[in-house]
């Protein structure tokens, strides 16, 4: 047995960020541990990260490039795989133009820089990511409102914390981790929790506001109403640094508390108390979660919440919501060479004319992609390269996503396993896990850090995603570097460090300064926080935020509610899984073997549903089966369901993608999308429930 070596690296089982020490023996990672020296995770590590050895060495993992022929999948060389893709892309470019190639990724996984560089140099404006309804949408909306994304400053000792639709201890809140929230909270901060479901934090909270799913924007207006009416806002800040305060305050007046209570189901008195607490205790930090973005209120809700931060004077102050200063490294944007995409190609971005904010942050919506494939309008998409994404499970109206990807003439995927999406591909490229990568990690986040993720091992013929884009790019005659590490040297150049030196340092942090607006203003056209947005006005949109009722709800479609009387709150996150990942990991699946739908005991009784029973959940778009769990901590009118479910243990094509996939129920019709960002509503629609006739659904065997 060889000597054990310890390699300090950074996890990426979710978006990543946690420090890890990987123990390597005889060329194999035998164990991972949290790194106490990590500035992000401080030694903790979650169940997903801890289970990485079962991911990396999983018997079903695909370790070689594969090609699908009439006889099924067969192993090929990297040379053949890349040449096949390059030849197809060259053919499409010649016949239809580069815009007919879609490049896509799922959730943020630290390779945006390389994926976008490949797409931009290819000349396609059609990059499909989760960003239209997750994080990038928040960045887009804050960009036009206050110039950057204000993130919670846990290190600055907030005295009041608002967890707005976020559970950072179960799921990744994008920048910092749950442990830092917990440290801040344990110092005695007041806690306000906005959540339709009573979770751990709601139990701990000083005030818990149990809102109707999807009404966050209206509730934020309610907060502002109290703050303005009771003169609790920061007049000095508002006078000097807010553009259009008067108009904004007039808009807020349209949301008196009785109206907000009717919309949100939250009692007026509770809204008042929460608003007072947030406005009076300084500093206060607001951590927002992705449900605020995953409806048609995406942009408006984000803008309203920035209004709340601004009104309470919490922007860029210690312990408030801050604009972190990035370390001196090249930005993802510069590396991606967005400027090299010609104006002509940019003008061809699918949905770009309509969804201007999405276009501003260089992405398209899945709906635009599916339409272009299925209807060939405005022009057809012919080929695609999708990396680390499983849209037939994770995008709204999954049956349409499935039909579109099935129809796409040529599809290459980059992944670890044969997923339901990979089943539809022609070429499979095996990606390296985070144990198999060298990268300047976390460089796309807004927390002011970059982390050294260094390779611990190599497995099979897997390549890290960055190398795949790089080598494919070279096949397409694009300018790249000889090695992955050469590109990292370029990324690190402004810091004065090489990759080899950075590895020794472990991480870099930007020099934080607060109140930057006092010298520089905000990076908006007026230099102020644009609660009245000059950008949106120029684009012909309402310059002030508002709340819009869900397009499918008891209020807007009472006729649909007759047949589908419950509000489905889809997308409940779990600590062991990350979107559609990890269902094949034994340690994690043992903890959560089945897809869960939570039902209030009264509602369950009404339908003769018992805990543990499989139930049918239906919406106007389809029906799926999940296992019932009773939860008195949700509203009896609401049904809460997990997302991301497929069954890796079903070996046939499709892997049971349509059995428990909650996105078969969600909607992606044009009226359900955010008008600026094309954010898809993955969260709220109407549904019905009943005990399932088939009680033999789960196939997982311990």
């Amino acid at each position, binding site marked *: 047995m060889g000597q054990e070596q310890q390699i300090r690296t950074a996890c990426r089982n979710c978006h990543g960020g946690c420090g890890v020490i990987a123990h390597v023996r005889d060329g194999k990672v035998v*164990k*991972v*541990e*949290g790194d*106490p020296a990590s500035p992000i995770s*401080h*030694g*903790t*590590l*979650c*169940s997903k990260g*801890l*289970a990485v*050895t079962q991911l990396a060495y999983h018997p079903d993992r695909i370790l070689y490039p594969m090609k699908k022929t009439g006889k099924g999948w067969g192993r090929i060389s990297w040379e053949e795989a890349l040449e096949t893709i390059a030849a197809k892309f060259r053919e499409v470019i010649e016949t239809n133009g580069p815009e007919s190639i879609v490049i896509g990724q799922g959730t943020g996984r630290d390779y945006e820089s390389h994926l976008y560089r490949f797409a931009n140099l290819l000349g396609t404006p059609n990059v499909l990511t989760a960003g239209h309804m997750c994080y990038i949408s928040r960045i887009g909306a804050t960009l036009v409102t206050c110039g950057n994304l204000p993130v919670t400053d846990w290190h600055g000792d907030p005295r009041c914390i608002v967890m707005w639709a976020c559970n950072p*201890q*179960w799921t990744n809140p994008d920048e910092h*981790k*749950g*442990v830092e929230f*917990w*440290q801040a909270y*344990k110092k005695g901060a007041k806690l306000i929790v906005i959540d339709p*479901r*009573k*979770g*751990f*934090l*709601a*139990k701990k909270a000083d005030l818990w506001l149990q809102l109707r799913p999807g009404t966050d924007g209206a509730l934020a207006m309610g907060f502002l109403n109290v703050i303005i009416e009771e003169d609790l806002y920061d007049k000095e800040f508002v006078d000097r640094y807010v553009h259009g305060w008067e108009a904004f305050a007039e808009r807020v007046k349209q949301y008196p508390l009785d109206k907000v209570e009717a919309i949100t189901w939250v009692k007026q008195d509770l809204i008042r108390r929460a608003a007072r607490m947030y406005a009076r205790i300084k500093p206060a930090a607001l951590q927002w979660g992705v449900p605020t973005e995953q409806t048609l209120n995406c942009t408006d809700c984000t803008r309203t919440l920035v209004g709340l931060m601004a009104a309470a004077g919490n922007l860029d102050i210690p312990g408030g919501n801050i604009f972190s200063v990035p370390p001196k490294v090249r930005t993802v944007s510069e590396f991606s060479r967005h400027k090299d995409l010609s104006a002509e190609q940019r003008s061809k971005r699918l949905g770009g004319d309509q969804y201007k904010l999405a276009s501003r942050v260089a992405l398209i919506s899945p709906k635009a992609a599916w339409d272009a494939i299925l209807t060939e309008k405005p022009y057809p998409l012919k080929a695609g390269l999708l990396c680390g994404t499983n849209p037939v499970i994770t995008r709204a109206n999954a049956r349409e996503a499935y039909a579109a990807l099935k129809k796409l003439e040529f599809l290459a995927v980059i992944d670890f396993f044969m997923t339901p999406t990979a089943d539809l591909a022609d070429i499979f490229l095996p990606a390296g896990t985070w144990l198999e990568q060298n990268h300047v990690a976390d460089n796309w986040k807004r927390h002011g850090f970059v982390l050294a993720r260094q390779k611990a091992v190599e497995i099979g013929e897997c390549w890290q995603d960055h190398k795949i884009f790089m080598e494919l790019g070279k096949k397409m005659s694009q300018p790249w570097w000889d090695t992955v590490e050469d590109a990292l040297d370029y990324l690190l150049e402004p810091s004065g460090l090489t990759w080899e030196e950075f590895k020794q340092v472990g991480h870099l942090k930007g020099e934080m300064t607060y109140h930057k607006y006092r010298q520089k203003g905000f990076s908006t056209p007026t230099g102020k926080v644009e609660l009245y947005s000059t950008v949106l006005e120029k684009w012909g949109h309402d310059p002030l935020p508002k709340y819009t009722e869900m397009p499918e709800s008891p209020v807007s479609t009472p006729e649909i509610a007759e047949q589908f009387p419950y509000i489905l709150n889809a997308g409940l996150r779990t*600590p*062991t899984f990350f979107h559609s990942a990890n269902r094949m990991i*034994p*340690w*994690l*699946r*043992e*903890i959560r073997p089945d897809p869960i739908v*939570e039902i209030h005991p009264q509602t369950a009784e009404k339908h003769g549903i018992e805990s543990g029973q499989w139930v049918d959940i239906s919406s106007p778009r389809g029906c799926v089966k999940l296992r019932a769990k009773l*939860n008195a*901590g949700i509203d009896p009118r609401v049904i809460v369901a997990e997302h991301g479910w497929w069954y890796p243990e079903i070996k046939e094509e499709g892997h049971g993608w349509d059995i428990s996939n909650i996105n078969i129920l969600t909607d992606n019709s044009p009226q359900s999308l955010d008008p600026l960002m094309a954010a898809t509503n993955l969260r709220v629609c109407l549904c019905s429930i009943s005990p399932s006739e088939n009680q033999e659904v789960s196939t997982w065997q*311990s």
Partner: protein
Amino acid sequence: MAKLTLMFFKKECMGCHSCEVACKQEHGLGVGPRLVQVIEQAPDFYPVYCHHCPDAPCKKACPENAISRDESGVVLIDRQQCIGCKECLEACPFGAMQYDEKQEVAIKCDLCIERLKENRPPACSSVCPTGCIHWGDSRSVAKQISSGTARTRIH
């Protein structure tokens, strides 16, 4: 000498299950035995774990004297001596005693004695983001829990 013990401060367990996977990794366990387990009934979480009882019912129930309590207070099972009768599983009031179907013997928490020898915390405790898993001599753990000064960080 005060004896060692393990205690979860239940009120601060938020059901992330990190302790479970850390334990599996540390002990090289696959699917099956769960030496620590968190049962979820939102918004509450109930950790199931070995308390290393002074007068351990599992020890008393074992017909083969395979279970012992060492001088530091850690209740251990000698798997060579175990005959797989499961009497200890029945005796444990916490449901912490586990059965390893593959080896056909009982298995239990050993408080990561190998780690403790190196002055490192038990695996479960080392990863807990709320710091709700306490170990140490029974008096100081009890004191921490009752005074509400339970450490929020291990390191």
